[in-house]
């Protein structure tokens, strides 16, 4: 195999002090460092928000529990949701995009390196501002602390009358800042993908990661303004006496929901498509076959992006829209399932006839496939409007979206982690710790989120700080909590692995997985300039062409 012939190099910066390294991070505009900073910060927020989830689960483990006060609980689920979506999810998307897109397109850096750095610091500041609310938000008579209005902050609960103090303001301002960061990052990724591709890399020769990042970032450009607009309107309501969502003045509470979900639904696709991208890069390499139906994968993703902006009101089926409105959004929701299903089949087609290696990146991808299948099916159930009238705002829907976000997004990100960590750090993650992480996390995930569907079916609403005994929810909630503890332990193992392997991991070499895209052609970690000279490619898998000169891809594409 070609990988055996590659010289093993591990680049180390000669003897920089801690302060010098920190300074290097503060002033850097290098996409690789910034990508790692995004990812590292995201993992910190993952830990904090994850601990909140554990606290929530401990409170709900038994009925009528008094571990957490109602207000504390309500703040926890708000902060958990807000952090996970914006400070973990969007940051991981930015991190992976910033790190990989220039490397995979043979570019030297992003199109706008300084803008890249600006985006990261906006994100960090926004995230810190959100948590500062615990200290800074108390207003009149001590009201206010961290936001407690839920991560989608429905009006008029967020109005001055019902949300006293400054909690909601912190929610708004911190997200406006992180949105600037995300928007700027999106512009950068798109400019890089379109304008900085190396010679020979036509759009249809870009790695799927890059294509899917393009679609994702387009969606960011179109979806994030809806949230920012709604938040600016809310600020105008709260501070300038506006009436956008003031029902006393004839304003509409429903229009907040419309605006929010016009952002919110594309947002969840913005999160999942990069996970699709990781899977689309990893499954071919570990099946030893090219991705099945590359053009269809591109097209299906573009279709998902397009259709996903028309499904938003499926979060609002109980709001009282007309039967025509409800039917329209049901139809669009079902339609978005078609290209999603096609992608699953294409991954299946990639593995079929291959020689599947069950290394850690692939294990996470396999779990992803089963889990996303289930998540997609429960999503379809939720699209059946009458069924939705029972399931929405219950623990069934909480189980569904955690299935997509943890079982789909997080598993995809973990797969990407195990796959690209060796490239970024120069050392492989420890395999044994990794297996423990995988099995413990998968076990805990299923224990929690499989079980969680049932309280929903038995009538348990979401966002409740406690519940009465005798509703049939007790044991189910206890089991759910136990699974959460397993997941927490697994993530701890993962964190240990990341830190330990940076020093003690096996040196990776350029191409430990025998892969085919450009990032594997340079050292691990890559030098600051990425490639000694601009590469030239003739197919989708330039390294395959190199390793198999007798049977290159460009003969068949």
């Amino acid at each position, binding site marked *: 195999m070609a990988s055996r012939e590659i010289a093993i190099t591990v680049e180390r910066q000669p003897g920089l002090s801690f302060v010098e390294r920190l300074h290097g991070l503060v002033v850097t505009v290098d996409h690789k460092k910034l990508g790692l900073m995004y990812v590292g910060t995201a993992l910190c927020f993952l830990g904090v928000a994850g601990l909140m989830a554990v606290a929530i689960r401990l409170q709900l483990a038994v009925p009528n529990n008094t571990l957490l006060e109602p207000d504390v609980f309500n703040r926890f689920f708000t902060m958990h949701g807000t952090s996970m979506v914006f400070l973990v999810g969007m940051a991981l998307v930015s991190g992976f995009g910033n790190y990989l897109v220039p490397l995979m397109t043979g570019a030297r850096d992003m199109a706008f390196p300084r803008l890249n750095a600006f985006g990261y610091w906006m994100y960090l500041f926004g995230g810190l501002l959100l948590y500062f609310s615990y200290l800074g938000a108390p207003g009149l008579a001590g009201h206010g602390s961290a936001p407690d209005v839920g991560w989608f902050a429905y009006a008029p609960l967020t109005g001055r009358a019902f949300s006293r103090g400054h909690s909601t303001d912190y929610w708004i301002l911190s997200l406006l800042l992180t949105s600037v960061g995300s928007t700027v990052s999106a512009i950068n990724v798109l400019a890089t993908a379109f304008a900085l591709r190396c010679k020979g890399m036509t759009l249809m020769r870009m790695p799927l990661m890059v294509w899917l990042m393009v679609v994702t970032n387009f969606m960011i450009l179109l979806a994030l303004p809806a949230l920012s607009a709604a938040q600016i309107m809310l600020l105008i309501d709260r501070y300038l006496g506006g009436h956008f969502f003031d029902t006393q003045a004839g304003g509409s509470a429903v229009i907040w929901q419309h605006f929010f979900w016009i952002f919110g639904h594309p947002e969840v696709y913005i999160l999942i498509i990069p996970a699709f991208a990781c899977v689309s890069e990893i499954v071919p390499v570990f099946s030893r076959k090219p991705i099945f139906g590359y053009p*269809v994968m591109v097209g299906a993703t573009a279709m998902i992006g397009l259709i996903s902006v028309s499904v938003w009101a499926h979060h609002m089926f109980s709001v009282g829209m007309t039967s025509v409105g409800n039917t329209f959004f049901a139809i669009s929701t079902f339609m978005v399932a078609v290209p999603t299903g096609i992608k699953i089949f294409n991954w299946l087609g990639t593995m079929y006839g291959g020689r599947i290696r069950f290394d850690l990146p692939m294990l996470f991808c396999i779990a992803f496939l089963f889990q996303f299948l289930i998540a997609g099916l429960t999503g379809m159930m939720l699209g059946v409007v009458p069924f939705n009238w029972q399931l929405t705002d219950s623990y069934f829907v909480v189980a569904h979206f955690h299935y997509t976000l943890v079982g789909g997004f997080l598993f995809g990100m973990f797969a990407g982690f195990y796959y690209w960590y060796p490239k970024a750090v120069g050392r492989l993650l420890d395999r044994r710790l990794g297996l423990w992480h995988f099995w413990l996390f998968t076990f805990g995930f299923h224990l929690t989120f499989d079980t969680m569907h*049932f309280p929903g*079916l038995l009538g348990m609403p979401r966002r409740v700080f406690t519940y009465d005994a005798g509703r049939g929810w007790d044991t189910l909630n206890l089991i759910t909590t136990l699974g959460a503890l397993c997941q927490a332990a697994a993530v701890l193992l993962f964190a240990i692995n990341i830190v330990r392997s940076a020093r003690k991991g096996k040196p990776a070499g350029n191409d430990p997985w025998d892969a085919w895209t450009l990032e594997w052609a340079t050292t691990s970690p890559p030098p600051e300039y990425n490639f000694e000279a601009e590469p030239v490619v003739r197919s989708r898998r330039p390294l395959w062409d190199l390793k198999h000169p007798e049977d290159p891809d460009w003969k068949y594409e």
Partner: protein
Amino acid sequence: MQLRLSLHRRLLRAPALLCFCAALIVIAGHGEPAFGNPGGITNIFRPLSQPAQEIKETSLLVLGICAVIFVIVGGLLTYTLVRFRHRAGDEASEPPQIYGSNQIELAWTVLPILIVFVLILVTSRTIADIQNRKAAPGAVHATVVGHQWWWEIRYPELGIVTANELHVPASGGGIRRPAFLKLQSADVAHSFWVPQLAGKTDLIPNRVNLMWFAPTEPGTYLGNCAEYCGTQHARMLIRVVVQPPEEFERWVAEQQRAAAEEPGAQAGRRVFFANSCVNCHTIRGTSAQGVFGPDLTHLMSRLTLAAGAAPNTPDSLRAWVRDPQGLKVGCLMPNMQMTDGEVDQIVSYLQTLK
């Protein structure tokens, strides 16, 4: 090592998912046809009313379709993982590099589209059926107004105002007396969800939503507020009491009466009217006409206090009047800082409001 891993994969996947399916089936077929909901179990698959029954039928069809899809696709995935795993001796060569196949892509595009088409038909029919129902002549009309964190219930045609408990007559035996509800809110968004009767419908300020249900079995049906509405969202329970028609008429007659003047509770009455209780509460037939809090005219006829936060017993009532924050922290009834004596007197007055 890799072989063992893949087997472990099978070993863990299949039972976990089998359990999931089994539990789903158990839930779907859970229990006997209930008299109301015994012990408070509110299983959406044990409906005792339209439209919950129609929803269940649609849901089971969809569940069936999804189960079949899961078995087929999951089975294919499992098969692929086992059949095409890397075996020792595969080191030297790469498998045939297939780039795609238009026919296969077409096939697995058309099939999902057909399934989607079926789902669209089923869904739109059920939506129209449920949403476009018009009120029959014998229907009971009620208006439910959501407050933080209790339910105001008015029967405009019957002249009744109560709280947290909705009484409706049972349909059945050829008599249809569905309940048609108007849903409104006095403050933030709430949602009315009694799983065994109907799906949920939101209560949104500055908006009127409509829903209906037609229960056939008498009993007490539990429900919850299903839209996060602030601190005590979790303790905003609904009870729908479905009564045989004669019992319902008796209840209506009792509720229509104004509060009786009981001689024994004069002291308590005086304390009640001296304090600012009257600013928030209405007791029909007296000068207490406050509307911020629940109507207390027939407080003792209700099963619970504070929207299900406590049972309606003398001890709970005493605890509630003394310090509402103790039973439901964050609720909008303040602690009136009364002495024990005053509390007792008020409670004895309230206990006359049958």
